[in-house]
C-alpha cells in the first residue's frame, strides 16, 4: 500500500517563503488572466501592460514609487500591530483622519509661515490618526471589544467624517459644487525632492530608521517583539502588555495619519473624497506578507503599489475595471497564506503496511530562532475572537 502522510516540520523551511511567494504570485497571475479571458480581454497583452505600466519606464517607476509612499507608512504601523497579535485593520480610517487633521491645520492657519504650518500639520495628522486608533485600543483593553470589528467600523465612520467636512463647511465656494477644499497655499504643500518624487519619501526613510532603532535598540521595542509571540509569557515577564497594545495602535494611527497628510498635501494639494483609494487595506496585505521586517515591507509596498499603477494602465488600455487590483491583492494574500503550509508541513510518501517514517523532517538546515515568520500562519485565531484578553 502506497500512501501519503502529512507531518509537521521540526523547523520551518529555510528559503521556503521565497519560493512560496513566487509560486503564489504565479498562481494569482494565472487566475487573474483566467478572469480577464472570461471577459474577452487579451490576457497576454494584459500581463505585458501590467508590467510596463508599473516598472518598465522611468515615468511608471516614479508613479509606483509615489504610490508606495502612503502604502509603506500604513504598512509599517499595521505590521507592528500584527506583530503584537493586534488585528488593527483600521489604517484606512486613521489615514482619513490624518487627512482631515492636516486640512484642519491648513484651513485654520492659512497665513502661517511654512516653518510653523508644516509641523502643525504633521502634529494634527498624527494626533487625529492616533486618536482614531486609540479608541478601539481602549475599547479592547477595557471592554474586550473585538478590535477587528471596531477598527473596521471606524474606517466607515472616518471616511464619512471626511466627506462630511468636504461636502460641508470646508467646501470651496468657487468649486462649482464639487466636494473639495480650496487649493492649499504653497506653505502647506510638500514639494518635490527630485523629479516627481516628493519629500514624503524622506519622511518614509526617517520613520523606517527610527522604527528600526526603536525595535532593535530599546527595551520597549524588544518587549514588543517578544510580547507578540506569546502574550501570556509576556505578562509573566512583567511586560506592560496593555501599554504595548495601546502603543502599537497609537503608532499605527499616527503613521497612517501621516500617510493621509502626505497624500492630501503632496499629491492632491487639497482635500477631496478621492484621497481615499484603499491604501489602508493594501497595507494589511503588505503587512501580512512582509511581517515586521522593514526591508520586506518596503519591497512589498513597491510591489503592490506597482500592481495598482499597472492596473491603472490596464484600465486605460483595455478598459479593465479598477477592481482588478483588489482581486489580485486578495488572490495574492490567499495563495501565500495557503502556500505557507509547505513551510510548516511536509508531505511524506509512506510505503509498507504501517508506514512509520521517523526521520525528523528537514531539520538539517538549522533554522534561526530569530526568524519572524512564526507570527501568524499556524497560530490560531482565538485571540481575534475573544479580544485577546484572557
Amino acid at each position, binding site marked *: 500500500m502506497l500512501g501519503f502522510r502529512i507531518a509537521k516540520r521540526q523547523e520551518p523551511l529555510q528559503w521556503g517563503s521565497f519560493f512560496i511567494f513566487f509560486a503564489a504570485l504565479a498562481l494569482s497571475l494565472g487566475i487573474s488572466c483566467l478572469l480577464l479571458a472570461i471577459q474577452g480581454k487579451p490576457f497576454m497583452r494584459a500581463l505585458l501592460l501590467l508590467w510596463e505600466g508599473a516598472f518598465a519606464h522611468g515615468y511608471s517607476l516614479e508613479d509606483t514609487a509615489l504610490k508606495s509612499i502612503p502604502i509603506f507608512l500604513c504598512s509599517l504601523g499595521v505590521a507592528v500591530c500584527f506583530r503584537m497579535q493586534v488585528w488593527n485593520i483600521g489604517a484606512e480610517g486613521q489615514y482619513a483622519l490624518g487627512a482631515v487633521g492636516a486640512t484642519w491645520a491648513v484651513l485654520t492657519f492659512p497665513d502661517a509661515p511654512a516653518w510653523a504650518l508644516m509641523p502643525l500639520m504633521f502634529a494634527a495628522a498624527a494626533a487625529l490618526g492616533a486618536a482614531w486608533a486609540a479608541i478601539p485600543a481602549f475599547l479592547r483593553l477595557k471592554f474586550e471589544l473585538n478590535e477587528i470589528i471596531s477598527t473596521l467600523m471606524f474606517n466607515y465612520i472616518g471616511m464619512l467624517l471626511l466627506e462630511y467636512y468636504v461636502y460641508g463647511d470646508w467646501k470651496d465656494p468657487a468649486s462649482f459644487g464639487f466636494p473639495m477644499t480650496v487649493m492649499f497655499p504653497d506653505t502647506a504643500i510638500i514639494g518635490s525632492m527630485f523629479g516627481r518624487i516628493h519629500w514624503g519619501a524622506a519622511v518614509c526613510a526617517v520613520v523606517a530608521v527610527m522604527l528600526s532603532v526603536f525595535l532593535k535598540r530599546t527595551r520597549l521595542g524588544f518587549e514588543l517583539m517578544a510580547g507578540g509571540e506569546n502574550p501570556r509569557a509576556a505578562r509573566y515577564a512583567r511586560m506592560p502588555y496593555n501599554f504595548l497594545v495601546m502603543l502599537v495602535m497609537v503608532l499605527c494611527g499616527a503613521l497612517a495619519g501621516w500617510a493621509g497628510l502626505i497624500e492630501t498635501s503632496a499629491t492632491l494639494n487639497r482635500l477631496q473624497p478621492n484621497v481615499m483609494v484603499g491604501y489602508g487595506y493594501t497595507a494589511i496585505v503588505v503587512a501580512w506578507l512582509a511581517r515586521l521586517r522593514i526591508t520586506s515591507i518596503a519591497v512589498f509596498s513597491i510591489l503592490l503599489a506597482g500592481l495598482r499603477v499597472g492596473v491603472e494602465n490596464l484600465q486605460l488600455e483595455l478598459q479593465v475595471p479598477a477592481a482588478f487590483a483588489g482581486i489580485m491583492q486578495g488572490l495574492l494574500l490567499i495563495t501565500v497564506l495557503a502556500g505557507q503550509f509547505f513551510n510548516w508541513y511536509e508531505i511524506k510518501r509512506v510505503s509498507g503496511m504501517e508506514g512509520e517514517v521517523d526521520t525528523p523532517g528537514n531539520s538539517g538546515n538549522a533554522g534561526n530562532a530569530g526568524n519572524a515568520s512564526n507570527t501568524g500562519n499556524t497560530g490560531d*485565531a482565538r485571540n481575534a475572537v475573544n479580544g485577546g484578553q484572557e
Partner: protein
Amino acid sequence: MITAELIIPILAATVQSGTPILYATLGEMLTERSGVLNLGVEGMMIFGAFGAFLFTYFTGNPWVGLFMAGIFAGVLGLLHGLVCQVFQGNQVVSGLALTILGVGLADFLGTPYVGVATTGFTPFEFPVLSSIPVIGGIFFKHDALVYLSYTLPLIFWFFMNRTRWGLAMAAAGEHPAACSAAGLNPVLMRWAGVFFGGFLVGLGGAYLSLAYTHLWTNNMTGGRGWIAVALVIFAFWRPGRAVFGAYLFGGIMAFQMRLQALGATLPSSLLLMLPYALTIIVLLFSSARGKGRAAPAALGVNIEPGE
C-alpha cells in the same frame, strides 16, 4: 391614527432592511458554531448579490438567482475551508483576504451591468395574516424572501439543538478531538459549516439585488457583512437574539432613510454613520461574559492534520 400611519411604514421598512442582515448573521453563526471564524462575510454577501443578479438577469427567474446566490457565496466559503482546513492558514487572514477578493470579484465582473435592472421578488399580501391590524401591516406585506426569513431562526434552532447533524456540528466547534473520538468527522462538519453558512450569507446578498433593489450597483452591501459578524457576537451565537439584533439595525437604517426622505437638516454623511456607530455600541453591550454567552470553545482554531 396619525401616529400609526406614520409608525407602521417605518416598522415595515425595519423588517425589510433587517432581512438581509438576518440572513447573513445566521449564516455566519452557522459557520462559527462549527468552529470556523469566517471574516469574509462582506465579500461573500456581495458576491452572492452579484450571482443573484446575474442569473436572474439571464434566466428571468428570481428563484434560480436566489439559489445561485447561495452557491456563489458558498463556493467562497469553501475557498475559506480550503485555506484553513487543508492548508492550515490563519482564519482571520484568510477571512480578510476573502473579503478583499469577494468585493473585487463582484465589482470586476459586475462592471458591465452597473445600473442594469432585472426582475426580482415583489411584495404581496400574505393570505389571511396580512389583514391582522398593525401586525399584518408590519410583517405580512413583504416579498417571499422576508416570509422565508421568518422561518429561518426556528429551523436554525431546531437543527442545532435537535438533530444529529446539528449536534455534531456544534461538537466540531466546541471540542473537535472529542467529536472525532465519538466517531464523528469534525473536519467534514466544518466543511458543511463553511458551505451552508456561506449559502445563507449569499441569500442575504440576493435580498439586496433582487428585493431591496432590482438592479446592480457597486458596493451594494455597504458594510452589512461586517455588521453581521458583529451581530453573531452580540447574539451570543444563538438565533433568537440574532433576530433582535438584525431588526435593531433594520430599524436604524429605516429611520435614517426616513429622515433623509423628510429632508432632515442633518447632512447625509452624519446619518450614514449611524449603523456603524450602533455596531460598536451594540458590541459594548455584549462584552459582559457569563453563562451561555461564550463563543464556541474551538472557534478559530484549526484542526491539525494527523490528530
